[in-house]
């Protein structure tokens, strides 16, 4: 009896201490010097692998040590960077880039066409994250001209040249990944792998120079990020949306728009079994009326409020915010009555009064998965399931490990994340070459096939300019008559906002819309950050 009292007291005390400390404001630190920054944007940047085709660092061109031939501007369009311009041959296979002449690497040596050729040859064989399988050969024409020859028409190659940072031929060798020499706005000062990365401005950089003498990137566990922000030792820290309602003295919450979409694939073919013996397709979602009823009947805002703490923007298309997105013909959700009406009309009726509709003996019911290691996706799956109930559609939300969720996605829809800086994603989403029932990939996992859409996508890949490619990409989504925007092979829900606590007075410049992946994208304009 006595023992349990003591135990209860102790336990109570522990809980009291922990909750008190969590809610109490932090000890205020003395203001630190304003010529340095401490930043936490996830562990990837401290990986010590700074080759431009590294897994974390080079992804989507988030380089601070390197620049590429082109760059992606705030409107997610490409513009010249190391190259002054480029031309594409009539057959669409030969790309010729002309280089700037005034560029130096951070070690003081000048950039030449040789370096560009060397970079692409190395990247192609590096087994890294950059896909250069379409590149047949690269030649140096003279000191400042290089020519790429492709083995197939592939207009997204323009984007690729905006993502591959250029490395020096002479300065490259073993150890480069930890001591990168590049043409970017910063150079490496010190790396303590998995702990911190310290950088300083590259004096030879030809663009806007950072006003900070030193910037330190920390690798902080997601659970402790908020506590760290409260400690006052950090100026920018990425936090999960769960914490977006918290306040931190001396800091403000920045919510940055993204094209980081979340949604579910809705298989458009009836249920069948593939070569691997796996059940693919669905007798429920293969009915276009069910897909339409779901898209217009749910309330995306409600789902965002329930699953994401309200942090996110409702979205019903995949490429939200990107220049190749097509919002036509438009879609309004929360039309519960209309959704019920079309379901009723199509023969989906609740005959046995259990709240779930049936048609020809098929219950209007299917399973979906959210990946087990990403709470946001599972929350979205559960919130969607709740939201669809009022339509008489029973969605069973499950948590599944990610590899398994991908493998079974053609039978059991899974929560997909998108948001790529390359319009190649239009191909990935809708092209019939990825629609096979034996394919294991999230690319076109609804198994959508439409010859007209294929034609537009092929035309997009063969385009001579980005503007032309964007035009075809938009038509691939909706050409005034049809396309995925009315066939609705996906159920898109939200573009997730990326949340950061930022020191008061520190400006993060004009952030271009973030791609997939919370964390690193915020540093793409690191050299433009400054105190006001």
């Amino acid at each position, binding site marked *: 009896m006595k023992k349990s009292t003591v135990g209860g007291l102790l336990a109570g005390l522990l809980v009291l201490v922990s909750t008190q400390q969590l809610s109490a404001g932090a000890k205020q630190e003395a203001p630190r010097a304003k010529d340095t920054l401490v930043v936490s944007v996830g562990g990837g940047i401290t990986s010590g692998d700074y*080759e431009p085709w590294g897994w974390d660092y080079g992804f989507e061109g988030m380089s601070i040590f390197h620049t590429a031939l082109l760059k992606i501007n705030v409107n997610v369009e490409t513009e010249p960077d190391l190259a002054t311009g480029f031309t594409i041959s009539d057959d669409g296979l030969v790309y010729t880039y002309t280089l700037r002449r005034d560029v130096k690497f951070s070690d003081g040596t000048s950039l030449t066409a040789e370096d560009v050729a060397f970079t692409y040859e190395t990247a192609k064989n590096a087994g890294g994250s950059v896909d250069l399988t379409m590149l047949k050969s690269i030649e140096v024409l003279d000191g400042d001209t290089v020519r790429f020859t492709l083995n197939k028409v592939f207009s997204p190659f323009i984007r690729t040249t905006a993502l591959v940072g250029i490395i020096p031929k002479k300065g490259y060798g073993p150890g480069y990944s930890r001591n990168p020499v590049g043409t970017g706005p910063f150079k490496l000062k010190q790396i303590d792998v998995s702990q911190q990365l310290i950088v300083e401005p590259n004096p030879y950089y030809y663009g806007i120079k950072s006003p900070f003498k030193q910037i330190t990137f920390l690798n902080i566990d997601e659970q402790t990020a908020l506590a760290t922000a409260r400690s006052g030792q950090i100026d920018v820290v990425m936090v999960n949306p769960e914490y977006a309602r918290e306040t931190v003295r001396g800091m403000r919450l920045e919510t940055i728009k993204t094209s980081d979409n979340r949604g579910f694939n809705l298989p458009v073919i009836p249920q069948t079994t593939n070569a691997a013996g796996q059940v693919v397709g669905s007798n429920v979602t293969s009915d276009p009326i069910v897909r339409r009823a779901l898209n217009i009947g749910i309330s995306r805002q409600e789902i965002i409020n329930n699953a994401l703490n309200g942090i996110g923007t409702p979205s019903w298309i995949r490429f939200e915010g990107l220049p190749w997105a097509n919002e036509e013909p438009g879609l309004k959700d929360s039309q519960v009555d209309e959704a019920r009406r079309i379901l009723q009309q199509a023969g989906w009726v609740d005959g046995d009064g259990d709240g779930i509709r049936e048609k020809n003996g098929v219950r209007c019911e299917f399973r979906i998965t959210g990946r087990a290691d990403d709470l946001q996706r599972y929350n979205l799956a559960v919130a969607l399931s709740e939201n669809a109930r009022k339509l008489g559609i029973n969605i069973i939300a499950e948590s599944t490990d990610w590899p398994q969720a991908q493998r079974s996605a053609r039978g059991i829809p899974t929560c997909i994340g998108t948001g790529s800086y390359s319009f190649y994603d239009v191909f990935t989403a809708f092209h019939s070459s990825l629609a096979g029932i034996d394919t294991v990939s999230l690319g076109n996992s609804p198994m959508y096939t439409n010859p007209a859409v294929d034609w537009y996508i092929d035309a997009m890949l063969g385009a001579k300019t980005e503007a032309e490619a964007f035009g075809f990409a938009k038509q691939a989504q909706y050409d005034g008559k049809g396309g995925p925007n009315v066939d609705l092979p996906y159920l898109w829900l939200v573009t997730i906002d990326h949340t950061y606590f930022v020191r008061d007075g520190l400006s993060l410049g004009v952030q271009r819309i973030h791609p997939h992946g919370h964390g690193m994208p915020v540093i793409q304009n690191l050299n433009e950050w400054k105190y006001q």
Partner: protein
Amino acid sequence: MKQFLKYLAGSSFRLVLLLFGVSLFSFILVVSSPVDPVSSFVGIENGVSDEQRALVAAYWGLDQGPVERYGIWLKNVLHGNLGTSMLFRRPVRSVLAERALASLALMLTAWVFSGILGFTLGVICGAKPNSVFDKCMRTFCFILSSTPVFWVGLLLLIVFAVNLGWFPIGFATPIGKAAADVTLGDRIYHLILPALTLSITGISGIVLHTRQKLMDVLNSEYIIFARARGESLWTAVRRHGLRNIALPALTLQFASFSELFGGSVLAENVFSYPGLGSAASLAGIRGDAQLLLGVALFSVFFVFIGNLTANLLYGVFDPRIREGGKHP
């Protein structure tokens, strides 16, 4: 001496067998886990073509069958080459060497601390069972032993690093300080909270075991006789108790090497401490087989050394065991 060498040879043989078994078992686990290393590195939502995926697989030797992969790995290990980590793009050996040092410092500090503190507290509790101190301590131990390491870590972090500001919020070196300027003091200062976290959770088992053993000893007839002769409690504890409970305590302490390693995985993640633990979890999540096997081998070695040391120390502490070797 000959006896000792024979023992050592036998142990080494068992170690080799164990290393082989663990590596094989770990490898089977890695290849049969659902994590596809190529997908986890390229990112399945990244729009990378199948050709590029094949290229990546070929580059890292992932296109071969599991038997071939293990064979190649084993051959390389016998030549002293632990392979290359996909994750860090560096030889596994150099990744291990770099991180083992940080981890060992952390684990040894925590180990010594929890050993000394746990033993002392256990003796005090066992000498005066059911006193107020004993009751508090026991409750405390029960709470601790059911508390996950990362939660303790988070709690210490919030109280001592964030609110009181006594300790740094993590990392093995000060934020933004160049490596050349980092002093030994800096390193020790950064070691305290993670080591405390690790030792706090390790303490409870030692306290409870020591307490129980001492109680058993104190209840034996020779102690009752000694007390009756007028020996004070603490003299009895010192003369008879400590000797008799040293062996079980020692066994426990050295056997805790494995728990220590497991706990450090969690503690290192909370404090962003760059040791083997955080490398192991990263390698596991991303399917970096070579690195994971490297860490597994290291941990086997570590735990084995712990148990071997305990076995050797038995002889030092208890001559009967040493004698026993001569008359099998």
